[in-house]
């Protein structure tokens, strides 16, 4: 998805992992995804730069769709669609 599309995407759940370091953001994603219905979208907020690579890897492994990342003021917002 493009940055513009992501910016206007409404997440069904927002998981705030800002301030945590590896593996905090993917732990937060694992906890958060169960609260999202299949087809729903979860946004993960993170300050740890490695998350931009780690969350797509987590999504691929756990069978969800990584939609993309947008950079906000001082943090990243990463989008995942629950696929199963």
């Amino acid at each position, binding site marked *: 998805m493009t940055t513009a599309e992501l910016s206007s995407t409404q997440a069904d759940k927002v998981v705030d992992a800002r*301030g*945590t*370091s*590896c*593996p*905090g953001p*993917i*732990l937060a*994603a*694992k906890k958060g995804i169960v609260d999202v219905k299949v087809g729903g979208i979860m946004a993960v907020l993170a300050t740890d730069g490695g998350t931009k690579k780690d969350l797509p*890897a*987590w999504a*691929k*492994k*756990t*069978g969800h769709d990584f939609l993309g990342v947008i950079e906000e003021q001082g943090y990243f917002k990463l989008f995942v669609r629950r696929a199963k």
Partner: protein
Amino acid sequence: MESTKKTIIVFSGDLDKALAAFIIANGAAAMGDEVTMFFTFWGLNILRRQDAPSHQKGFLQGMFGGMMPRGSTRLGLSKMNFGGMGAGMMRKVMRQEHVASLEELIQIARDQGVKMIACTMSMDVLGFREDELIDGLEFAGVATYLGEADEANVNLFI
């Protein structure tokens, strides 16, 4: 991708290596993998309780118990430890950088269902009884570990 299994042998009792082991274990568990950690030799020190009951032990085993770090908070660094000062500085920097402490990582690993096995042979050698180690462990030997490793696609020795 299918969920798979990871096994980690924790041989070292160094703070930095224990951190690496638990970060990998927690990361794998967060990615949906089954994780087994097998603690042997110096790695058992990570699992020692601070408030362990005292036991009558042989001279050498008593020495081992007294001289080795009693639990995760007492571990030193594998490099630049400087008699424990290095470990203290490492913990301070990690707090500043919002990295989870070893104690938090151990708790998260338990919450995620990471299986932790203490090597009974090493326990005999170093003179540790089951009640001197933290709760929630399994006690087994090399065959159990090998059985788990057979089912795993990643096996680390730390």
